[in-house]
């Protein structure tokens, strides 16, 4: 028996929409098996993982809080991957945005005005975009592989954050803990009611909707899709590959930076060595699970946010490693890629090796 692919004459609409669902089902099944293999009751664990987080208001709020950065970064990456540009350093750009945006609340503590918050957000975007500009420049100017450079910068900027919160930006009255001063109220994002959900969620959804329109209906979105699908056709259409690399990196870097400052000013309230549980990498999964479509990314962001809360759930209730989350996320990306094959191909099993006579 051999498995072969047969190209479909037209891409399958049905598979386009059902492949993410299929991937989720496969992840749940294999996840259950892993739980069972680790001696945990699989159904109970799956319930805790996927259902429990959306059964009470507190955890739904947590899901929305975690979905915020995932959606923000995910939509930027969705556009970028569409163009066949590979920014996988969003985690670093998130950190850079958090650092840049925190200049105001840490160094200009006394500037207390709504404008300060706005400036923080803008600086966060600039920070992320600046870091993302490095791989873009190297790619355009020297042809250096952007995957490797954007990823190396993640390690570098993490060390920079580490140095800042243990050194110059350490809270002098913080009992020598490696963290900055807590942000002033003026420098925190407003929340809805007394809850944890903050303005960032609204910003994320508005940006996702705008990018949806851009991608689906405007010439810029067309340009992204053309260059991603066929670079030579892009040149024929008069679109510049180099400008596209810049556009993608500045956009996705800016949005990752925005997610960074929003996370710090909305959820954490100060700088510390760990500000993100790998949102920048998880957003890669969000982008693919969301079909590289900004609306899809909103739903995918919510699902992946559930996986974070669910991971905490099984950690607390069943005493499992917090790595469960990462395993589920990895599997999800793995299966979504696998199922996406079905959009363009049919699978057929051949007996023997296809010979005749």
């Amino acid at each position, binding site marked *: 028996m051999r*498995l*072969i*692919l*047969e*190209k479909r004459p037209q891409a399958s609409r049905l598979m386009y929409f059902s492949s993410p669902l299929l991937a989720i089902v496969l992840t749940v099944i294999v996840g259950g098996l*892993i739980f069972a293999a*680790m001696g945990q009751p699989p159904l109970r664990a799956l319930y805790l993982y996927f259902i429990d987080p959306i059964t009470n208001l507190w955890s739904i709020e947590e899901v929305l809080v975690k979905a915020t950065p995932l959606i923000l970064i995910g939509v930027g990456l969705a556009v970028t*991957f569409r163009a066949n540009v*590979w920014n*996988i350093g969003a985690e670093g750009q998130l950190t850079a945005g958090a650092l840049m945006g925190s200049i105001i609340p840490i160094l200009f503590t006394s500037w207390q005005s709504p404008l300060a918050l706005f400036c923080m957000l803008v600086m966060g975007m600039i920070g992320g975009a600046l870091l993302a500009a490095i791989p873009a420049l*190297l790619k355009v100017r*020297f*042809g*250096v*592989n952007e*995957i*490797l*450079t954007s*990823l*190396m*910068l993640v*390690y*570098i900027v993490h*060390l*920079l954050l*580490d*140095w800042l919160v243990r*050194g110059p930006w350490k809270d002098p009255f913080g009992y020598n803990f490696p963290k900055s001063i807590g942000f002033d109220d003026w420098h925190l994002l407003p929340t809805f009611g007394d809850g944890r959900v903050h303005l960032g969620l609204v910003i994320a959804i508005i940006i996702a909707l705008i990018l949806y329109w851009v991608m689906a209906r405007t010439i810029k979105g067309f340009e992204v899709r053309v260059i991603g699908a066929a670079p030579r056709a892009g040149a024929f259409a008069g679109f510049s590959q180099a400008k596209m690399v810049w556009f993608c990196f500045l956009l996705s870097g800016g949005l990752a930076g925005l997610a960074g400052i929003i996370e710090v000013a909305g959820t954490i309230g100060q700088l510390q060595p760990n500000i993100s549980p790998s949102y920048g*990498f998880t957003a*890669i*999964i969000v982008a*693919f699970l969301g079909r590289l479509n900004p609306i899809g990314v909103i739903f995918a962001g919510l699902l992946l946010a559930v996986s974070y809360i669910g991971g905490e759930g099984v950690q607390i209730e069943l005493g*499992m*490693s*917090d*790595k*469960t*989350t*990462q*395993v*589920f*996320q*990895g*599997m999800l*990306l*793995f299966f979504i*890629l*696998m199922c*996406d*094959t079905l959009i363009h*191909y049919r699978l057929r099993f051949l007996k023997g090796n*296809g010979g005749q006579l």
Partner: protein
Amino acid sequence: MIDYEAIMLTIITASTPLLLAAIGELVVERSGVLNLGLEGMMVMGAVAGFAMAQVTGSAWLGVLMAMFAGVAMSLLFAFLTQTLVTNQVATGLSITLLGLGLSGLIGSGFVGMPGVKLESVSIPVLSDLPYVGTLVFGQDPLVYISIILVIGVSYMLKRTRMGLIIRAVGQNHNSAHALGYSVIKVRYACIAFGGMTSGLAGAYLSLVYTPQWIENMTAGRGWIALALVVFSTWLPGRLAAGAYLFGGVWILGLYAQGMGVPIPSQLLSSLPYVATIIALILISTNRRLSVINTPASLGQGFVPDR
């Protein structure tokens, strides 16, 4: 006085995992496949090797297990990218994410446990020679294996028919297919080889370099190994030189910290990553150098007609 032999020894120790992972990836890329899952395969090798050695008490069984884990991960990658023709970049990332998660899960019970160290070779008299004794005759076995692998791969690619076929498949899979070579089988084999050496690289970390299990203990070495392959312009000799250079940079940072150089430790820790970026820039300024060796179909999926 600086003990130059000790420094050389630590440099080799720091370089060997990079070299092991990169030499496999070099073969993979020569066959036209880009496997970004190196980090994931490596970290799985590290945890599997440690766990096996911990349970059985045998470092060598750990090494075997690590190779097995690396190959298993690489076959997942091969199934997706070769049989199902998925995007290689994204699939490699998923292998890395999966490997980092799975290794953490498997290793959660092993954190803080004492490890088993793979003992160095010791040859009476020779290993005790001054200056070069330990350096040449007293390394751990994996160092020798890594050097044998580099020489073997170099010979294989340049002089053997298998190497010719791998290069042909990497350059033009359509032509190779037209001549009757099974592009997908060749690539499966190369990917599995890459998985094996990545597993070895992981084993080196958890059984030699620091014989214990630490989460994410690969610390980006898989990515640096990928950069090394680009830096080497796909030539094994240059790859080895690059790996030792990088090991040197890594150790330079550690030594400077140890000797109390008044520079933030974070800056020194970032040296390997900065060096990687600089190396990539340097190599890219000389495009013609890499052109002949670059596998022309690198990263492209292949679907034969039937």
